[in-house]
């Protein structure tokens, strides 16, 4: 009896174990499927591997990958890593020495130390040998320098896409024009709350919908309109952080007043982006300050509930300085670096650079971004019009966007045309913003203390900012927070950045 029982018990155990392993590994096997389904590849092709984040649920169709391999004569190994675990995978890859030839990692924090330690190739002397890479924008490349050396190529992003999106039908109902100054903005938000802009005889609207993010929400943008520098600026001849400027406090007062008067969502520090957008989509709020590109999404959502809804975008809101200024990003996303653990010789480096140079050819750039002409998009008046089957684009084209190199100006890829007028207008305003951007001067400067402590110190100041805006603390408490920031490393950071600035002049 015991024998029979132990046999079936063993069988059951083995079955369970197999079941568990089958369930557990589905995430891991996704990553390498891209490179498996190929035909014969000539032995003479160079092998190039690249790790890139995947924002979709599935690895894309290898059609485009195969086309690129043929046109550039390489054997491409794309490792798709789910975006949510990308950072962790990078760390693990570092630790186990399994980085690919091309990696796309952030250049701050722990990674910066690795860069300074010489783990990556310095490509300053090579880049000019390649016709397309040579054309990459110098300003943006400068923003990626570490210790004055160039380690990265980039994928471009507009410098600033910030602006306001507002209900233009409400504005028309109340005879309001697009706000040109901060006072007019305040007035519009106030009227949207108090003057029944949707004309339904009910007091059910508020002006501004914001979320709990001081950088990508409304705060930083409004601050830059009011003259606050981008993270760091010149105060009395020395570099100082933005929160030490009087204009920063004025911006905090602006939001504090809005909130206390009930003109914006009271719980904004804990409101997520989805909830913020829902407030606009549901017709509860009328003003959204952030990336003007979101107007498409807001319109799609809102028009389903109310077909008469109308939005418009606007960028130039001026503060007390009288000049329009807006903060800008570094101009790039996805810097591409070349680890020495994967690219072992100078020869290999040159082939990798040649490959990336090839990715910048207009033909390939269009493949990566838009897909196959005729199948995924058509060309109308020199602009690309994507097909309406979003699912097909998601499965076959969109994931490849993450390995684009350069920007439309430098690679010659087609820019898109948009049906929805405000979205097309937003694209124009992105370019308009370029003339008024304020950069973060510390992007290319060095401060060891900053690298080691920036998140914790930033948290200190963010907390103090929120507490002030929520009325939980007063100006004295805010100043105390600044003192604490200085004592816990901030004073050193100011010194280091200023020293680095002097050296770079």
């Amino acid at each position, binding site marked *: 009896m*015991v024998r029979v*029982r*132990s046999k079936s*018990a*063993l069988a059951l*155990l083995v079955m*369970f*174990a197999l079941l568990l392993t089958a369930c557990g590994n589905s995430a891991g096997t996704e990553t390498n499927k891209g490179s498996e389904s190929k035909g014969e590849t000539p032995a003479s092709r160079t092998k190039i591997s690249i790790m890139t984040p995947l924002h979709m649920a599935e690895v894309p169709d290898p059609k485009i990958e195969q086309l690129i391999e043929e046109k550039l004569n390489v054997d491409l190994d794309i490792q798709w890593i789910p975006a949510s675990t990308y950072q962790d995978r990078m*760390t693990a890859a*570092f*630790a186990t*020495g399994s980085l690919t030839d091309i990696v796309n990692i952030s250049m701050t*924090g*722990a*990674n910066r*130390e*690795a860069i300074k*330690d010489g*783990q990556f190739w310095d490509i300053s002397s090579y880049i000019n040998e390649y016709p397309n890479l040579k054309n990459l924008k110098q300003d943006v490349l400068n923003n990626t320098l570490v210790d004055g050396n160039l380690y990265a190529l980039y994928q471009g992003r507009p410098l600033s896409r910030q602006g306001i999106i507002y209900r233009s039908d409400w504005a028309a109902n109340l005879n309001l024009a697009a706000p040109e100054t901060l006072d007019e903005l305040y007035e519009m938000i106030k009227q949207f709350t108090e003057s029944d802009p949707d004309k339904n005889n009910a007091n059910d609207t508020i002006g501004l919908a914001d979320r*709990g993010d001081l950088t990508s929400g409304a705060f930083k943008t409004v601050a830059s309109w009011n003259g606050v520098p981008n993270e760091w600026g010149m105060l009395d001849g020395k570099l100082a952080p933005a929160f030490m400027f009087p204009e920063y406090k004025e911006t905090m007062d602006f939001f504090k007043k809005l909130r206390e008067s009930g003109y914006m*969502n*009271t*719980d904004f*520090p*804990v409101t997520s982006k989805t909830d913020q957008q829902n407030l606009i989509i549901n017709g509860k709020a009328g003003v959204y300050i952030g990336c003007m590109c979101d107007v498409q999404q807001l319109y799609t959502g809102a028009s389903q509930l109310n077909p008469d809804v109308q939005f418009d975008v606007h960028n130039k809101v001026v503060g007390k300085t009288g000049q329009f200024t807006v903060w800008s990003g570094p101009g790039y996303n996805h810097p591409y670096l070349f680890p020495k*653990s994967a690219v072992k010789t100078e020869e290999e480096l040159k082939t990798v650079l040649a490959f990336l140079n090839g990715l910048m050819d207009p033909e390939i750039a269009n493949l990566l971004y838009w897909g196959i002409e005729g199948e995924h998009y058509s060309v109308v008046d020199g602009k690309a019009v994507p097909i309406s089957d979003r699912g097909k684009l998601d499965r076959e084209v969109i994931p490849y966007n993450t390995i684009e190199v350069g920007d439309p100006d430098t690679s010659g890829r087609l820019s898109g045309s948009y049906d929805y007028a405000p979205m097309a207008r937003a694209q124009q305003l992105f370019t308009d913003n370029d003339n008024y951007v304020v950069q973060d001067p510390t992007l290319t400067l060095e401060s060891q203390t900053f*690298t*080691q*402590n*920036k*998140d*914790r110190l930033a*948290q200190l100041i*963010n*907390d*103090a*900012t*929120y*507490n002030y805006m*929520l009325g*939980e603390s007063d100006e004295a408490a805010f100043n105390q927070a600044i003192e604490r920031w200085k004592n*816990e490393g901030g004073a050193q950071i100011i010194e280091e950045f200023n020293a680095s600035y002097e050296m770079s002049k």
Partner: protein
Amino acid sequence: MSNQLATNKGSLLRSIRKNKLIYLMIFPGLLYILIYKYIPMYGLIISFQNYKPYKGIMGSEWVGFEHFTRLFNSPDFWMIFSNTLILFGLQLLIYFPIPIILAIMLNELRNEIYKKTVQTLIYLPHFMSWVIVVSISFVIFTFDGGIINGMLESLGFSKINFLLSSDWFRPMYILQIIWREAGWGTIVFLAAIAAVDPQLYEAAKMDGASRFRQMISITLPSIKSVIIVLLILKIGDVLELGFEHVYLLLNSTNRHVAEIFDTYVYVSGILQGQFSYSTAVGFFKGFVGLILVLLANWLAKRYGEEGIY
């Protein structure tokens, strides 16, 4: 049974052969614990180093107790420590008795269908992730149009800002834990109660004991040892307060009551790539948990109860 598992090697092998099936049953669990819990402890060494992923464990420099001193000297250390202990105390005092009470109450139900339905309904929240639980609380308690504030307003009271006030953090925290975990916790106690000899109840009934008296004098003492074991285990978990849960509730206004070791280490250690520091904090947490378990176990034995070991 326990006499047979003697320390003598010969009799150990003999008892393994005799109780093959039982050992086979616990073998996967043992393997799992060995591979995933014991072997990785080797990584604790990096808390004594300045670990850099690209240098590996062997190549990183040794710094001794530097990270631990940094932790203890950090201006927030005592705040974080006391927050952790307070939240833990709340869990022990308020949350811990609830599954016991629920189990006893469920045991008293006569109608089987009703009992099963209630049991299923209260187990369900355990399967929801903390993100869902906190999001639901957000919708219910939000100042702009949440249900609770709507009710308060219509009853004539003024609205309360539950999410953005430090006074409400601890109540919300405990409430959410009770909602999510109490049902699941009743499982073990129900099993223990079901194991009580029904003859005891019959004898008590014959002596004229009321249901309430039966509960206090029979049920509770019978499950005492189960309660104590679970209590000791819970104490060992003292510093595992659930990073996800607290992180989701943390915001600028409640940080001074809500910051615990895990959230602190996330910002100061992991985000900034300081793996050694993060490991040092984790090491400290584990160490304190160990001391507390040993203490609790010793106390239990002292009072004549069975400890965990």
